[in-house]
């Protein structure tokens, strides 16, 4: 329900933030960097600033942005983040579990975000993957009264967090409600 509430909140988003990786940035980066190599041997300059190294860096830069905690928090909130961390810890304990599969889905869906595909669609795919990854560990909070209370507190905090971040600045470039 909490996640459905968050998705409902995104309905006012006119332009979803795109993490689209633009290949032209590689060329710009290489030229920018080489311009700073005054008096440096041309081969050395090419060794450090070339399309391969810059391409890898630029792609990595776009990709790691999709794992910024603020972005993830805006999608799944504090409760979701806690659950996601629990799911991650379960992968560490047992790498051959179902959690690894869902985690792989998150990693791949994040890759979609940097491709030139409609940012709205890729956002929802990525968000749903994160929700599933979080929900996988929801049962951790069942079993004892103390855990249930903690779950409820995190639920309230998440609702409050979603209310404050209604503009969803990391997710949405422009949000507007009539």
């Amino acid at each position, binding site marked *: 329900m909490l996640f459905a509430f968050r998705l*409902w*909140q995104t309905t*006012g988003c006119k332009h979803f933030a795109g993490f689209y990786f633009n290949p032209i940035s590689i060329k710009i980066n290489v030229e920018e*960097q080489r311009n*700073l*190599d*005054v008096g*440096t041997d041309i081969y*050395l300059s090419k060794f*450090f600033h070339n399309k391969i*190294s810059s391409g890898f*860096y630029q792609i*990595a*830069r776009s990709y*790691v*942005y999709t*794992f*910024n*905690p*603020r972005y993830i*928090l805006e999608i799944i909130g*504090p409760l979701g983040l806690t659950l996601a961390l629990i799911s*991650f*810890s379960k992968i*560490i304990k047992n*790498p051959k579990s179902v959690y690894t599969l869902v985690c792989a889905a998150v990693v791949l869906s994040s890759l979609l975000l940097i491709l030139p595909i409609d940012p709205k669609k890729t956002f929802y795919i990525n968000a749903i993957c994160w929700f599933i990854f979080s929900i996988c560990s929801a049962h951790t909070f069942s079993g004892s009264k103390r855990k249930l209370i903690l779950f409820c507190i995190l639920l309230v905090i998440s609702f*409050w*967090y979603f*209310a*404050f*971040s*209604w*503009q969803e600045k990391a997710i949405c470039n422009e949000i*507007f*409600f*009539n």
Partner: protein
Amino acid sequence: MSKFQKIVLLLIIIAATFLRFSKLSENPPGLYWDEAVIGYDAYSILNTAHDHHGRLLPLFFESFGDWKLPVYIYLDTLVIFFFGLNEFAVRFPSAFFGTLTIFVFFLLIQKLTKNTSLALLASFFFAISPWHIQFSRAGFESTVGLFMAIAATYFLLHAFEKQKTLFFTVSLILFTLSIYTYHAYRIFTPLLLIALIFIFRKEIKRNLSKIIVPSFICLVLLVPILFFSLSPQGRLRATSQSVFQKEEFERQDVDYNQKSKKPLRFMSRYLYKKPLYYSFVATNAYFDHFSPTFLFSNGDQIGRHSQVDMGQLYIFELPLILASFFGLKNLNKKTKLLILTWLLISPVPATIVSVTPHANRTLQMAPMLAALSAIGFEYIFFKIKPLFFKLVLVALLSYYFFLFLHLLFVHYPVKFSPDWQDGNRSMVHNVKKFQDKYSKVLILNNDQAYIYLLFYLKYNPQKFIEENGNKERFGKYFFISTSYDIYNKEALKEKILYVAPSWQKVDGNNLTTIKDTGGRQVYTIWEVGGQD
């Protein structure tokens, strides 16, 4: 520890020394005003026992928009005694303690893990850490504070082993000194102490009688900073840069009332409470420090704090840190807890002030991230069989390390000279060259120009204090505002030397132009007036 391991440790420390001391005077390319005031205050203390404001052996030093803590300045007094007043002397304590931190960090990790190879790896990653190198190469107090915190933790663990009051005393005094070194440690050190008390509660209980007296001494030593923290001076920086701005809260509240989703607007009066809003802001600021963008791709966007063209860490450390979570399983519970708690409390001092993420206020993260990289490296290198992966890992590590060196020594001085207010040394040298012919030197007072004149002229601090010198005038130097009319009749009667910013058109005789390391024009020096 084998002979081979000792040699490796020595090599790591030599590399760390090279990375921190090489071209220290020229790179970073200029002396930032905070460094200049630290240097001149230390010089003033050395010569007069007063700071340049005329206060006798102060415990807190008035700076630009904040008050500096004493440890770095008094340490610098010693260095200036040996090396004189120059850039090298101002940066020496940071580079020296930065290098020493590598050794202390090795001891700490060795003590925690009882694994010398891992400790060597951790100290290696810390020695080549772009984050730590960046701050060790300039007059940042945070590097000295970090040394104190790591050394204090090491001595505490050593004290638990040896059960000697002396080590407890050394540890607690170092913790106290860290609080007197840099503002961030006023928050970080108490939090670290709470964490240590919790993690090592059994050991503390066992040694309680040996801890009481040193704790009492340290509490007494902390009284001045406690009063300082509560005073307007002590809160100046936190207040001026606070993220908790009432106006911003009110603006956000109005925004929510008018623009948020309709059915939720009515809840504003219950949701938009100040403490809740401030917690929201602080939470976001806290998490910003764990952002992969900050850590691995862009770094702190202030040019003095990072290379900007890369993250605070090397990009190859990302898979290492992820792998470290698997490697952590092999460590004992207390070690795991200490590493993770240290890392988690490190960003707290930066959450109450803007701008975030802030690499200087969270430098404490760097050693534990290096430890995680080492754990990850060990895990991948020794647990994963294919040789190909190992070769790729070593090749990547080498490539990015040399790329960092290239950025640090070739790009950085050219690209970031404006961030370091480069050009002031050359400006003062030229003023010195031309000034004899003029009875007055006028300088447009931007970027605290007076401190550069004091610093590079090695102006007698006693004279400065006696003539009531200040940021507007001392000796024949006048620091004027943009509204000052340099062409008024009185001023034109005699020739004056005028230092103008590069953008100002001046009606006079151009003597020279000052450029920074990047070739940007910073100042022009003019002869103005002299007509009847």
